[in-house]
């Protein structure tokens, strides 16, 4: 480590610049491989191989000319929308309960709710398949939606809990003190203050549902979601370029949504600090 001038002492534990190079290399490692999807999606060749030939958008046209793909996309959007709203509502209940009340056994309950994050998806998939089979429901988008709700609710609850944790409980009490019922207090105080968390939760649960493959793979019947459809197309080499095009679009859309979600969440918290 180099010597620093006395008036600006190095912060303890400050790493050298070698680590910065490592960090940049690491980011390249994380993002680099994925960039081949958009790259080759514009390459005018059926083979995903160097050298690049010429620029084309025909794979995108091909992807969107595929009616089955459009159907799968619509299914995924529908499932994602319903899942996002449902799990955010469920998460809101859960988050309010654990942040506002002291509940006996709270640790155990929260751990149970968060469990899906720690169990391999294949286990979640087959056990839900068994349940659905035992109950006697046939596989469809509805069963996919049910599975996704189970998967997404912990995310929603985590995002919303951290949001509700931050704000002064006496704000809600002040509202009730001024004569509002708990129900209207929720709408006049809790909801506006939690709005960034709610938006963030909606976006994130939507992305998780939209990108989810394995549960849908087990639970979808005849109507595939988009990832399941993509999976089924991977077997056909001539479909590869349009899968690349589709994949590139999905990745970019997901990235944008994640950035927006995290930004909204962060925005909310900094405002919060001033507010309370």
């Amino acid at each position, binding site marked *: 480590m180099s010597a620093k001038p006395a008036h600006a002492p190095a912060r*303890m*534990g*400050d*790493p050298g610049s070698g680590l910065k190079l*490592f*960090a940049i290399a690491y980011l390249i*490692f*994380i993002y680099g*491989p*994925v960039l*081949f*999807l958009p790259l*080759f999606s514009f390459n005018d060749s059926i*083979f*995903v191989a*160097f*050298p690049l030939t010429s620029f084309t958008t025909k794979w995108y046209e091909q992807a969107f000319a595929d009616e089955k793909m459009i159907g799968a996309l619509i299914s995924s959007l529908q499932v994602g929308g319903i899942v996002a709203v449902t799990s955010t*509502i469920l998460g809101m*209940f*859960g988050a309010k*309960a654990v942040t*506002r*009340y002291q*509940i006996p056994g709270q640790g155990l309950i929260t751990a*149970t*709710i968060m*469990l899906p994050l*720690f169990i*391999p*998806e294949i*286990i*979640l998939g*087959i*056990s839900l398949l*068994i*349940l659905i089979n035992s109950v006697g429901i046939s596989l469809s988008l509805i069963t996919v939606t049910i599975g996704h*709700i*189970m998967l997404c*609710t912990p995310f929603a609850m985590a995002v919303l809990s951290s949001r509700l944790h931050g704000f002064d409980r006496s704000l809600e009490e002040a509202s009730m003190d001024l*004569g509002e*019922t708990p*129900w*209207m207090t*929720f709408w006049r105080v809790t909801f506006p203050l939690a709005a960034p968390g709610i938006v963030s939760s909606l976006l*994130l649960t939507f992305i*998780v549902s939209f*990108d989810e*493959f394995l549960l849908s793979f*087990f639970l979808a019947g005849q109507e595939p979601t988009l*990832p399941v459809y*993509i*999976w089924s197309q*991977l077997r056909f080499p001539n479909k590869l370029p349009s899968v*690349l095009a589709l994949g590139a679009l999905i*990745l970019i859309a*997901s*990235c944008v949504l*994640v*950035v927006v979600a*995290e930004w909204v969440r962060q925005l909310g918290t900094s405002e919060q600090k001033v507010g309370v």
Partner: protein
Amino acid sequence: MIFWDFFGLCMANGGNSHTGGVGCGRCQFLSRWRLARNRVVVRARKHLSVSSDHGGASPGFFDRLRAFYLRSDAAKGYVLLSPVMLTMIALLAAPLILLVLYSFWTQVGLKVDTNWTGDRYRELIEKQAYVDIFWRSIQMSGLVTLVTVGLAYPMAYFVAFGVKKNKFIWLILLTIPFWTSYLLRAFSWKIILGYNGVINSGLISLGAIQEPLSFLLYNQTAVVITLAHAYAAFAILPIYVSLEKIDRTLLEAAADLGDGAWARFWRVTFPLSLPGVIGAAVLIFVPTTGDYVTPALVGGPTGQMIANLIQIQFLKIGDWPLGSALAISAMAGVAILVMLFATALQLAVRRIR
């Protein structure tokens, strides 16, 4: 949602002085609601006074219930929590219990014989191929975990200690992969490692090789690389959080007591960041052992893992009990290994003085 909040409302609204203004729609609604509730109460009271011996006490029942609800934080908490709890019981606990039950049953054609038997487990232990795949999965995941955590630690350290401005941007960059399509990220390795893929065609067009390298795809190495990449960002957050929590004055104290930079790291920073390291390791080891997509995409015949076996039992062969037994044993095995690992690591670190 409305239902639950109105439950709270109905419990809380007595016939007491309601201070709302006259004529507002909500108030009218509320009073109608209260009227309806009172009718129920009256009916209930009549019913109670006829049917119970101590009818004299019964008029207070709803009041007492309401008072209990008002007074009890726990009751309010449980009421709010119940939608999530019920969802999770129905969609998580019940299926897992069924999974355990299935593992003790027998598949007979398209039906399941529900007589209890441990035969599925015996089958698993006796068939060497299953045991082999299990160990192979463990080894591969162990390797993935080691590589991922090893790479993530310096990265997390950099963000925690090295980044002063715009930490937030770094954190977002590192969380994006967590939320985006795992399928697509794994798939990108298939096109990179493929026989006619990015690496081979790139090397050929550079003139470095004449023939495509066939050992890149469809083996265990490909699985390990893909998994390590797919889970790279997951390890960073827990480690980062534990590093960020370390009080910087502890390092100053260590320096004050004569420790150099390395000694400070090994004697203070590293032991204190261990919860994050363990958390990261578990967060990677558990899901990668049960990973299906990557081995299916890039594993080839030799790179298959336990999840692929389970999938075959469920969707191809149709022996659900055997598949369940596989899943249960894998989960149990992984849980035991994780506990051993965490304990061992903690014991090892306790030797640091």
